[in-house]
């Protein structure tokens, strides 16, 4: 797995800006508040294996990774992308 050498910081994003970024990355939000992909399937968090609600989603660099945010999923992301 390619590590992110230039990563600087985790930040928050306003709801409006987050919606635009998700759209640019090919995602939308369904009427129950979950993130869906271009095929209209709900996105599954690669670390927790659950559907990702917009409100609790993290958008992380290293392709177009969307995770269901928790200390566990963030830890797994850090191990995979930011640690040597």
């Amino acid at each position, binding site marked *: 797995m390619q590590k992110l050498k230039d990563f600087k*910081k985790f930040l928050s994003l306003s709801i409006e800006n987050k919606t635009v970024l998700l759209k*640019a990355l090919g995602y939308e939000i369904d009427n129950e508040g979950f993130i869906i992909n271009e095929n209209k399937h709900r996105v599954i968090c690669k670390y927790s294996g659950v559907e990702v609600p917009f409100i609790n989603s*993290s958008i992380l660099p290293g392709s177009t990774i969307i995770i269901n945010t928790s*200390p566990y999923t*963030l830890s797994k992301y850090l191990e995979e992308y930011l640690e040597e």
Partner: protein
Amino acid sequence: MAGDNEPDINKILGNAAVIELDKISTRTLSKIKSLWLKYKYYGFTPTPSEAESLKEISNNSTYLTFTRCVGRYEYNAFIRIGLLIYDLNETGNKDRVDEIRKYVYSEHGNVPKKIIQIASTGILLHVLEYLTNLRDEKNLSCDTVREEFINIVTLWENVSIPVSLLDPEENIICLIKKIIGEKVPIFFVYGAANAAYTAELIVAKLNNVKLFSGKYLPWCKVRTIGKIKKIEHFLGVFYALEYTDDTHLVEKF
């Protein structure tokens, strides 16, 4: 947030966000995507402060010792979460500690629960020191040390005696005698803050009356831990003498 030559993605997103979502041009969306894929500087999360704390743990000496000692494996995330809880406890963020514990205990089962218990109390550092010594003395591989760690975690409730000021000294001594009678391969006695001194005193007393003699080899350490509040911790590791030959402990469990 952007540097001199770095596009400010938040500003670009903000400019696009004033337009109705369905009316944002494909060109603008493509530009945002290409910038996002090119400049991998930031991660957007609802919990940036906690994410930063988790990131900082990558440089925490306990975490680094752990990864050096046992390598990378599926439970590393729980060590990190345990260390996060330790930091949150130090800053008095009890509500968040309770939330995280509840979530992990319900989602991830018993071994992660015990790992978090050990990592969040400051005992982990002592256990790691014991494992590092064991690895160096016996020239053990990461895989073997990892097995040893999991054995300790799995047996934790049966082989650990936390010393609290609320417990009468006689009760602690009874527990230690009981555990010795059970002939476990290894056990731990530990205490923090004022109880560290009590734990140390009890172990010294029992050592003086030669309770461990011929049965267990004590390995004791007092250490001061904490970034904000300095707290003294005592840990005694006792490993059965019959298991201290050229084989390592993990084979005896």
